[in-house]
């Protein structure tokens, strides 16, 4: 056996090279341009983004949005994943498909549909009027509540699916074992089920958080300029204001946030035993 490299490994080259050129290089350039001003190197871009109260507020607003979305997705999605994992046979396939389907529907369609749901003459108001819960149609479009609901709607499957795949792997006998050892259902849940589901929760939460922090379509459709996120500022800077430096700096901040989430999540996973 000679020490030559296995030629099979070279098959990776085209893919890696492509991604390197088409992905890595532009990103590096972007970061580069965020510290290049009109005449030489400057931190002005970052200074504007992090120093200006308005932009700081935008960053916080994005993080806030991400947090609410993740929390909401967790509250609804965590128990739902358990039910999905324990569903039997045919039902599990059907229910799974129903959760998977919304992922495949375009986000434009979903946001559009959400608008129809919330309109003054839309389905929610119609329902509430007919059930006698309200007397006049309530304005729900362009409210923060509607934004949160719309965000949770878009990102909920990304919480359910990772938790579901972890819970599915769990030994179904463990709660039985805990019970025969004298554990009350609550003790069994908090000391056995919950800890073992944590890797799925971390995966789901980090996915939802990173996606929702960077969301563009949903906030702009549902709130427009009333709720500015980092992505909207960035898009505006590039498309409307032609302010490349600002845009690039904001992009760099978004990248940093994404990187922190990814690293943080994988550290957490390693702490949890990486299973």
């Amino acid at each position, binding site marked *: 056996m000679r020490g030559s490299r296995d030629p099979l490994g070279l098959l990776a080259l085209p893919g890696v090279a492509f991604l390197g050129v088409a992905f890595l290089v532009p990103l590096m350039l972007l970061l580069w341009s965020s510290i290049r001003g009109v005449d030489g190197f400057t931190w002005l871009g970052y200074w504007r983004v992090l120093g200006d109260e308005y932009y700081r507020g935008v960053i916080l607003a994005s993080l806030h949005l991400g947090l609410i979305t993740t929390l909401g997705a967790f509250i609804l999605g965590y128990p739902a994943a358990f039910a999905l994992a324990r569903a039997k046979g045919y039902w599990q396939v059907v229910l799974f498909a129903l959760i998977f389907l919304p992922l495949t529907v375009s986000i434009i369609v979903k946001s559009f549909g959400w608008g129809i749901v919330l309109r003054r003459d839309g389905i929610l108001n119609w329902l509430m009027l007919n059930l006698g819960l309200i007397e006049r149609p309530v304005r729900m479009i362009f409210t923060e509540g509607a934004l949160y609901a719309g965000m949770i709607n878009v990102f909920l499957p990304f919480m359910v699916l990772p938790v579901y795949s972890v819970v599915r792997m769990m*030994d179904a006998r463990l709660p*039985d074992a805990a*019970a*025969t*050892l004298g554990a009350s259902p609550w003790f069994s849940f908090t000391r056995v089920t919950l800890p073992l589901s944590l890797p799925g929760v971390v995966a789901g939460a980090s996915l939802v958080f990173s996606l929702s922090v960077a969301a563009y379509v949903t906030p702009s459709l549902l709130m427009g300029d009333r709720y500015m996120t980092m992505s909207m500022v960035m898009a505006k800077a590039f498309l409307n204001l032609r302010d490349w430096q600002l845009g690039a700096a904001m992009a760099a901040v978004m990248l940093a946030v994404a990187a922190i989430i990814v690293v943080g999540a994988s550290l957490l996973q390693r702490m949890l035993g990486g299973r």
Partner: protein
Amino acid sequence: MTTSHLAISGVSKRFGSAVVLDDLSIGVAKGEFVSLLGPSGCGKTTLLRCIAGLLLPDAGSIQVGGAEITRLPAHKRNVGVVFQNYALFPHLTVAENIGFGLRAQGVARAAAAPRVADALALVRMSEHAGKPVTALSGGQQQRVAVARALVVRPSLLLLDEPFSALDRKLRETMQVELKHLLREVGITAIFVTHDQEEALVVSDRIAVMNAGRIEQLADPATLYQRPATLYALDFVGQSTRLSGRVLGREEGLVLVQTALGVVRAAGSFGTGSSVVIATRPEAITLDATPGMNRIEARIREISFLGSRTQLHLDLADEGDRGIAELPRLPEGLVPGALVSLGFAVPDTMLYPAA
């Protein structure tokens, strides 16, 4: 009759239209080891789960130590279970697994630690205390599972096929070891198994189960030598069985015509009934003495197994089996040879044809 430590009476359970447990009753004395033996689907695991409180029977009552526990949820019953694949908590260490039940029942850490240490010593796993359970071998995991169940001092220990996940050599060692351990602790134990050899090794009594009922409840020797039904005969040990027809009675014994000869056995069957006669392979000898049953058969195959030799006999009829077991390999015997075999009348069993 002494009051049983575990008293099950009239327990029934059905899933949909299938009757899984059919009016089952059994009593187990304190400190006794009983096996529920049967093929998959006979209801033994279902019965185990009912005793453990993981399943609610449709009818009947379960009492432990005189107390009615039929409707109690599992975590209030103090019935220990060793699961088939051990169900150890993968996110906890060996010591934490063992201490789980104590923590669940509110025992303070200070009081729990010595008990956990004792349990570890009991199963000889003290030096593995801090290891994650996923790093253990099958045999080690089983010991942890046993220690975990015992440390909370259950009134009863249920073991669901505890050796099935181990390889053969380890299985035999662990069977003896576990029996010894549980005797030392003095606990009442119920084993569920489909392996008749395992049942014979560990049990004081064996309950042979069939389709939700107990066909025979007896100590291993009685079960082996006097199986009550063909089912029990087939389930425990090997046998030679021949179908035949009753010719009549002679000197208090039933005369049966089989394909290999006329055989006499104790029993009461009318002339002309279809019956099956059976005997254990080691009861068959090449040197038949007067008064023994004699048959003639052709040898199909000879298997030398070291401590014994098996002669497989040529039999055409469906359901018939001819196996003779001899302590030594006789000279000059080859497949195809015709031999004369004998077995004593008291060793001959008689059953109605299935």
